[in-house]
């Protein structure tokens, strides 16, 4: 092409990164280019993106905003027109001076057609409606229609679009093509090839996002079949995301298989606590039982994804052996009346008892080991208490192997919060041997442990036996809680509200999905009572107030408010 004579170009119009198009007659301004979801390179903005900006719904199966475009399902077909150009290369104008629009003779798929200036998109014409009904009819030809036994029923795009755009009756009388069912695709996924509509979202996800090219389509025509590469299991740490993005019930989760119908699940906005990344999640629960975690979109943290390790780490919350009862020497002394004490009275007795002990403890005789799995608010209250008592404090580090996508090497969800509040030593865990030494020398007489089994972190049962007072709060029983003089049953994150600070300093809040068992209470509630009894200053009584109070006092959180965090959080200064 180097020999071609350069075309005479007119002076270029002032460069603009926006262009104007009309969607169903409504003018919208859209960016000329949109970053590619995988590489980040600018790509021309497409019609479907313009429709999203114009808040016009375009049904689609294979298109996903976070995946490369494939354009195979044909569900997003729309009609469009472009400004007509006359033989003189000038726009033809209508009598009223507006540009004349030449309607394209054929429809186009909105997901893969770039915009041009002045383009008009029509999504509500009779032709578009007929095309959608036609595409759906083809997709349903070989679909088994086994919705009663399909886990996707209730959140299935095939069901939704059939109601919105499809026909009420099938005209298909021939035998359907049968394909493999209940295929074991990997350790966490079951595949039903009859339900698959061949949109290839799962293939693109695992190839382009995860970098594990494990899935593909084999055979031809109606016999097209999704399958894993022969001899390879589909077992990377992100496989369950394909279940989320599968628009139909072809890929289903083994863990959630036949557990509960999705329309019964209450959805609560929460966070994943399995590492320091802080992926946003939705907890699906029914009648105080958690059935599943799903990722929630947050482009500042996890996009639309989460890892299988975090997603399946929820069963401990419903364990039978959860700590349920507040134990304190005082309530044991009141025995046998302690049986008749109400939970509120048992809590009051225990908190008062601890406050008395701490108030009379000589300075420097108290130490605290606070898990970096506790919330910012709880850590803040303990840091306040530690300052009042002159206590030596630390957290337990959990460093394992991370990956390049979401899983962080730091498996504590709130290490950053523990550092910001000044509870964790630098580096985290450096004070643990000092605390052990303090107990051994008899210098430390009282130990407060929150959410850790310290016998596994260098402070054995023999050392704990030397203590005058061991105050422990935890969720599940362990050696430390067994030895505790005061045992305060705490809550899992799904049973309380609060905030975590991710490894990148993102402060995010999570909501309560289920009720805690037995006497268990959110830790911040009893810590607030304890802190106010020991220090004599009454703190905020609500989680919102407590967060705002903390934001005022802890430098890293300055300027943040509970309501300002919103659903996707805000960034702290770390």
């Amino acid at each position, binding site marked *: 092409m180097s020999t071609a004579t350069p075309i005479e170009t007119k002076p270029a119009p002032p460069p603009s990164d926006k262009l104007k198009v009309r969607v169903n007659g409504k003018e919208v301004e859209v960016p000329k280019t949109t970053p590619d979801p995988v590489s980040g390179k600018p790509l021309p903005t497409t019609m479907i993106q313009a429709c999203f900006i114009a808040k016009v719904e375009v049904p689609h199966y294979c298109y996903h905003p976070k995946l490369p475009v494939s354009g195979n399902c044909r569900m997003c077909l729309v009609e469009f027109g472009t400004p007509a150009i006359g033989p003189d290369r000038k726009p033809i104008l209508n009598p009223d001076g507006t540009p004349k629009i030449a309607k394209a003779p054929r429809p186009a798929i909105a997901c893969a057609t770039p915009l041009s200036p002045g383009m008009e998109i029509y999504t509500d014409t009779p032709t578009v409606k007929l095309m959608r009904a036609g595409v759906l009819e083809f997709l349903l030809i070989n679909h088994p229609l086994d919705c009663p036994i399909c886990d996707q029923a209730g959140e299935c795009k095939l069901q939704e679009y059939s109601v919105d755009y499809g026909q009420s009756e099938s005209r298909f009388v021939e035998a359907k093509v049968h394909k493999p069912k209940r295929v074991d695709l990997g350790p966490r996924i079951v595949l039903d090839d009859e339900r698959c509509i061949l949109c290839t979202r799962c293939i693109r996800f695992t190839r382009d996002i995860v970098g594990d090219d494990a899935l593909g389509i084999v055979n031809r025509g109606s016999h097209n079949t999704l399958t894993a590469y022969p001899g390879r299991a589909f077992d990377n740490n992100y496989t369950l995301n394909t279940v989320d993005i599968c628009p139909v019930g072809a890929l289903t989760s083994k863990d959630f298989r*036949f557990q509960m119908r999705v329309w019964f699940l209450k959805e609560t906005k929460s966070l994943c606590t399995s590492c320091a990344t802080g992926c946003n999640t939705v907890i699906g629960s029914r009648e105080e039982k958690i059935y599943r975690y799903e990722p929630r979109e947050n482009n500042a943290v996890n996009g639309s994804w989460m890892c299988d390790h975090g997603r399946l780490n929820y069963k401990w919350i419903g364990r039978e052996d959860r700590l349920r009862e507040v134990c304190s020497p005082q309530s044991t002394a009141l025995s046998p009346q302690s049986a008749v004490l109400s939970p509120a009275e048992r809590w009051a007795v225990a908190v008062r008892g601890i406050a008395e002990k701490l108030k009379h403890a000589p300075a420097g005789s108290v130490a605290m080991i606070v898990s970096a799995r506790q919330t910012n608010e709880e850590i803040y209250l303990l840091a306040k208490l530690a300052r009042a008592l002159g206590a030596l404090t630390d957290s337990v580090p959990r460093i394992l192997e991370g990956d390049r996508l979401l899983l962080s090497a730091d498996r504590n969800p709130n290490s950053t919060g523990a550092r910001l509040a000044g509870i964790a030593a630098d580096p985290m865990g450096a004070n643990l041997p000092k605390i052990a030494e303090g107990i051994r020398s008899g210098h430390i007489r009282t130990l407060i442990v929150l959410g850790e089994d310290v016998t596994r972190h260098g402070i054995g049962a023999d050392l704990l036996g030397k203590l005058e007072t061991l105050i422990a709060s935890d969720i599940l029983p362990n050696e430390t809680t067994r030895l505790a003089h005061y045992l305060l049953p705490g809550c899992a994150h799904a049973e309380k509200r609060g905030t975590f600070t991710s490894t990148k300093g993102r402060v995010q809040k999570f909501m309560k999905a289920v009720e805690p068992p037995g006497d268990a209470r959110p830790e911040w509630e009893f810590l607030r009572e304890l802190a106010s009894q020991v220090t004599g200053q009454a703190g905020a009584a609500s989680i919102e107030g407590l967060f705002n109070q903390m934001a005022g006092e802890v430098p890293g959180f300055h300027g943040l408010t509970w309501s300002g965090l919103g659903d996707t959080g805000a960034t702290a200064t770390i």
Partner: protein
Amino acid sequence: MIVKRKQLNLWERLYLPAVIGGFKVTLRHFFRKKVTMQYPEERWVVPEGYRGAPYLVKDQDGNTKCVSCQLCEFVCPPKAIRITPPGSTGPGADRSNAEKMPREFEINMLRCIFCGFCQEVCPEEAIFLMKDYSLNGTSRAEMIYNKEKLLALGGVHNDPIRKWKHKADEARSQGMEP
């Protein structure tokens, strides 16, 4: 308000005409066809389409038809139905290609209002409102009918469609495992 007592006239004060009038009414009814029924020994035959107690049915091959889709549980206005889905460890379905059936299926007959929504919503024709209208028990717990009891009471439904059998036969004819 004071209601003034009416003075009786001579005919009324004679007393006997009124008694005889009363006997006439009694005698007229005495020779009519009887309308009372010796309940509970004798029972009313309910008309076709009557909405009695909902029970689960099996198909003609003895398979439990319910696949635990839980639509009846969802639609039930008084929340009388409670289904425990099989999960991954539950019992396999009687018809292997139907993949699942309930681990437990309970209807609280004290709550049931016999509206028939469950029968209407059932995509598998597995639950029907039958003709039982008098359900008794000596405790509340006894009035919660479990899967076993509901299936025993429901009996067999002669299903003309036999969807799952048809699907399995079609798959086998194409050389696929159903």
